[in-house]
């Protein structure tokens, strides 16, 4: 028999609360009421489940209990009684719904959370809080801001949803492409926020889980599948990204035997399905690039011309300097470091640490170790995380040693 402890209930909370909150928001059209009621239901679960054992359908139990709590709350308020008359029909029909909460509820909710009328910060925060079941403190920690600041951000966002009547529904066919983009961007941002910081694992897994949910609910959207494949393939390399002492290991030096084969297999299957569908988009192309990396036995054995062709395609769909920078890295492998350096010189990315890191690497490969040191120093100053800074400082030292006159003699004659 399963031991029902706080950890298990916590895990169920993370898995189920988004579903329950979404269902209650549909019934009561009140985000705060839904959140509070679901929270209360879990408090009751923490008390009851360890003694009584898990109910057959914990998620359904939570939703039903939360709905009853919400109704109790509303009965106590005069405004609530009025609202209750409006939802009475739905509430009466509840027994049918409790067993299988409508999956559409979560889909509706993510489109509300990611409405373009909300700021990007608010979208991410709302999605993690309402759908991901993270506490305000956890969301705050993930974005390195204080809990009161995050609480204020959430209150303001929820107020706007209510005051401006941001709808709770899946957009129609015509608006869907435009409205799906911010949803995918939020999931991608959430994953990336998880590549650093203390709540990293949770955020990455949450992003993958939610993307999986959306992909399951919208099987016809190729870019949703593309994002899921991209996240799975990126995540497959996670075990190789850090060495035993916690320092960063770049793709070139990663121990590929530690890559997660199951994630790679799943990612590959999705990428192949995307190729068959032939509706390319930014996320699908990035997934394809990662699939090529995952296929290669070593950095050197990578099919770089294939990667370069994919970057050419990516640059067409999203012509940003960061994409151009990543394409230049592939150019270096196909046409050599000088060709890549020429591309970098035309990019406006002076404030981006990876631009200087890439430049430093190319300069080093051209034997210009003095210039490489300066570029590594600049990159280290701009680095976004401690792990990256430590890594870049290490490269800086190597470049300095190579630039040293004692080592430089041979270089002059070459």
């Amino acid at each position, binding site marked *: 028999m399963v031991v029902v402890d706080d950890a298990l209930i916590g895990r169920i909370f993370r898995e189920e609360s988004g579903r329950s909150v979404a269902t209650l928001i549909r019934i009561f059209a009140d985000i705060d009421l839904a959140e509070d009621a679901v929270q209360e239901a879990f408090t009751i679960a923490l008390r009851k489940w360890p003694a009584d054992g898990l109910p057959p359908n914990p998620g359904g139990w939570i939703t039903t209990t939360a709905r009853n709590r919400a109704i109790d709350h509303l009965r106590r308020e005069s405004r609530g009684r009025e609202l209750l008359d409006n939802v009475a029909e739905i509430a009466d029909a509840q027994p049918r719904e409790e067993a299988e909460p409508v999956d559409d509820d979560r889909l509706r909710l993510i489109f509300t959370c990611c409405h373009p009328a909300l700021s990007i910060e608010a979208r991410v925060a709302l999605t993690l809080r309402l759908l991901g079941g993270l506490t305000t403190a956890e969301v705050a920690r993930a974005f390195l801001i204080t809990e009161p600041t995050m609480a204020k951000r959430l209150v303001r966002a929820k107020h706007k949803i209510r*005051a401006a009547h*941001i*709808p709770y529904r899946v*957009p129609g066919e015509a608006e869907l492409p435009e409205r799906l983009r911010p949803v995918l961007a939020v999931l991608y941002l959430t994953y990336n926020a998880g590549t650093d910081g203390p709540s990293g694992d949770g955020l990455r897994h949450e992003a993958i889980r939610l993307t999986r949910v959306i992909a399951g609910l919208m099987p016809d959207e190729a870019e949703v599948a593309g994002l899921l494949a991209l996240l799975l393939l990126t995540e497959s390399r996670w075990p190789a990204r850090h060495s035993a002492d916690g320092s960063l290991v770049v793709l070139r030096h990663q121990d590929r035997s530690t890559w997660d084969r199951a994630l790679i297999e799943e990612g590959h299957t999705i990428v192949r399905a995307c190729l068959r569908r032939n509706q390319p988009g930014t996320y699908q192309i990035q997934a394809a690039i990662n699939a090529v990396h995952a296929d290669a036995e070593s950095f050197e054995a990578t099919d770089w011309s294939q990667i370069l062709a994919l970057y050419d395609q990516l640059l067409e769909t999203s012509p940003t300097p960061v994409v151009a920078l990543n394409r230049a890295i592939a150019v270096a492998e196909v046409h050599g470091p000088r060709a890549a350096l020429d591309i970098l010189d035309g990019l406006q990315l002076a404030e981006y640490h990876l631009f200087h890191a890439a430049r430093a690497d190319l300069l080093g490969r051209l034997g210009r170790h003095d210039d490489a040191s300066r570029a590594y120093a600049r990159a280290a100053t701009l680095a976004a995380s401690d792990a990256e800074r430590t890594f870049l400082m290490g490269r800086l030292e190597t470049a300095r040693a190579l630039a040293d006159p004692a080592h430089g003699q041979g270089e002059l004659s070459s």
Partner: protein
Amino acid sequence: MPRYLLSTHSVAGATREPMTEEQMQKAWQPIQALEAEMKSAGAWVFSARLHDPDTASVVRMSGDEIVTTDGPFVEAKEHLAGFYIIEAADLDEALSWATKVTRLISSPIEVWPFVDTAGG
């Protein structure tokens, strides 16, 4: 039904070439057509175009006295130039009207929700 204010703004100093009567007519036709569309959809509550900021006056209290002065109260580069008040089922519906307006006038439009007097 929620109400929204759709407001357009004029930028101080950005005077346009004065239009001929004919041009004015031509520019107004699609705007009038859109207003008719709003009315037949039951969305239109009120709309107006305002004179330029030089024509505005301010009335305010100074101690116990009422003081009337020239010009808009807010010292800003942008001033209210016109507005619609519409009724819409939700923000998406309001935004779709705003999209139609901004296409016609080629300048941004703000969408403000009304405070619901019923207590929402």
